[in-house]
């Protein structure tokens, strides 16, 4: 099992979600987050005072996937989340030891 965390542009979120549903992904956890990587923020000016806003709004997706699906999901996100500009975000993959469904205590990939 792998955990996939993807931080993407809010404007691409709907497309990514639809594309993931098309390849059969049934569940995900989504959070509205703020942060920055190499993308510089923007400046706002209020009555002559300039503020640099360097934490920008992003969407974070978290999915835990059976190993067999990981490559397809990564390809799908890469394809749909890309705008080609700085600030498109990142994907992080990490190994997951165990998954347990709370309702019936199923374990492993069955619990996903």
């Amino acid at each position, binding site marked *: 099992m792998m955990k996939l965390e993807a931080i993407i542009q809010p404007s691409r979120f709907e497309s990514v979600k639809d594309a993931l549903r098309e390849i059969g992904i049934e569940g995900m956890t989504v959070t509205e987050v703020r942060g920055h990587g190499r993308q510089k923020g923007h400046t*706002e*000016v*209020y*009555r*002559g005072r300039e*503020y640099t806003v360097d934490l920008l709004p992003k969407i974070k997706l978290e999915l835990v996937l059976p190993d067999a699906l990981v490559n397809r999901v990564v390809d799908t996100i890469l394809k749909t989340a890309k705008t080609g500009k700085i600030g498109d975000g990142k994907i992080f993959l990490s190994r997951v030891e165990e998954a347990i469904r709370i309702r019936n205590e199923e374990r492993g990939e069955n619990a996903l």
Partner: protein
Amino acid sequence: MKCAGWKCSFSLVPVLGAILLAVFPLSAQQTPATSATPSTTATSAATPEIPKAVNEKLAQLDKDVKAAQSSADNAWMLVSAALVLMMTGPGLALFYGGLVRRKNTLAIMMQSFALMALITVMWALVGYSLCFGGDGQFIGSFEHAFLRGVGADPNPDYAGTIPQMTFMVYQLMFAIITPALITGATAERMKFSGTVLFLTLWFLVVYAPLAHMVWGKGGLLSASLGGKFPTLDFAGGTVVHISSGVSALVCALYLGKRSGYPKQPMPPHSLVLSFIGACLLWVGWFGFNAGSALAASSLAASAFVATHFAAAAAALGWSAAEWLKNGRASALGAISGAVAGLVAITPAAGFVAPMPALAIGLIAGVVCYWMVTKVKAIFGYDDALDAFGVHGAGGTIGALLTGVFAQQVINPIFGAGKAVGGLDGHWGQVGNQLVGVLIAWVFALVGTLVLLKIVDLLTGVRVPEEHEIEGLDITQHGEEAYNLES
């Protein structure tokens, strides 16, 4: 001074009535009180004596015309009073409320609201009398303390066609918004107790004398009621805006900067609120300026038009300056410009024609933009919401330009045919305006400084830093503006 040319035309009313009567048969709809026959016509110049019935009819007509004018004036003035109250709550409360950080929203709104209650009570007890009682040079008297003698009869010194009750409550609304404007400079760091005490004292010690000096009978700066330095101030350039704006600067300097200013970003928390507030201010200002004609007269129409034009020109002026400087025109800039224009036209509204009103607005928009973006940064004072930059600067520009652009065709305040301002060739008026401005500046400066010292000793003026960081809503009032989880 607020009263003006309508008085001259008023004396024409009975004359006009007589002419009408001579030309047209009396019709039953005008007055059923006397029994003139419909066939009565003014037949010839041969009869030198006017029949008694016609005389009675004339007298009745005269009375009815006066009653009709009084009704019309009173209706307009009551609406104007309500409009001016609307400028403080919700107008100014929303305008300022949106400009502060979210943790201080209720605190700044509450300051405006508290003044609506406090000044009203003070006004009833002594405030009105100190502003408009008696005929002293510097301050009113206790003649109308507890509103003694203020009832249905007009006070002919100030407004001869409306009940003094109406005049009194209209003037009250000005006394409310003026101290409320100062809270823009003390925002986000002044104690509620200190604010309340300071502004109550300020109303008595700074506002009341200045209002009497400029608008009161016999006041030092009165333009039409026997002032030594006749200063034109139609609706409060000196009394309202210079007094509050200059006091705001003193407060900002005395209190010191907000914790973290100017390094830490302190952007407005909701420009939507500010936007609504500014639009309400614009509308309310029609009551403020056009209402200052104290009658539903052509002068009120003139002031209404001048007010609107100046606001529009100033919004464009500020936006254009900002666009040139930053490459963008912001919503905050546009609404700030409109308010600056409204401030600047306030003393001039009932004296200037529409084209000069456009000029005054444009100048005020650009100069106030420069004040809040450049001058504030150079001197480094923390006038949090730019009460000085907009009201102090805009009020001063407006007061001086009133001396330039005032015309006797708009308002023959110095008597029929007498030159009023520079456009009429009376450039000395600019000097009078300068004296008025200087007196208002010095008075506000000294009065505010002394009062701040006193209040500092009694209640303290500034909240402790940890309270400032936590926000005044919680620390001063025990509540929050936005409980989004509830």
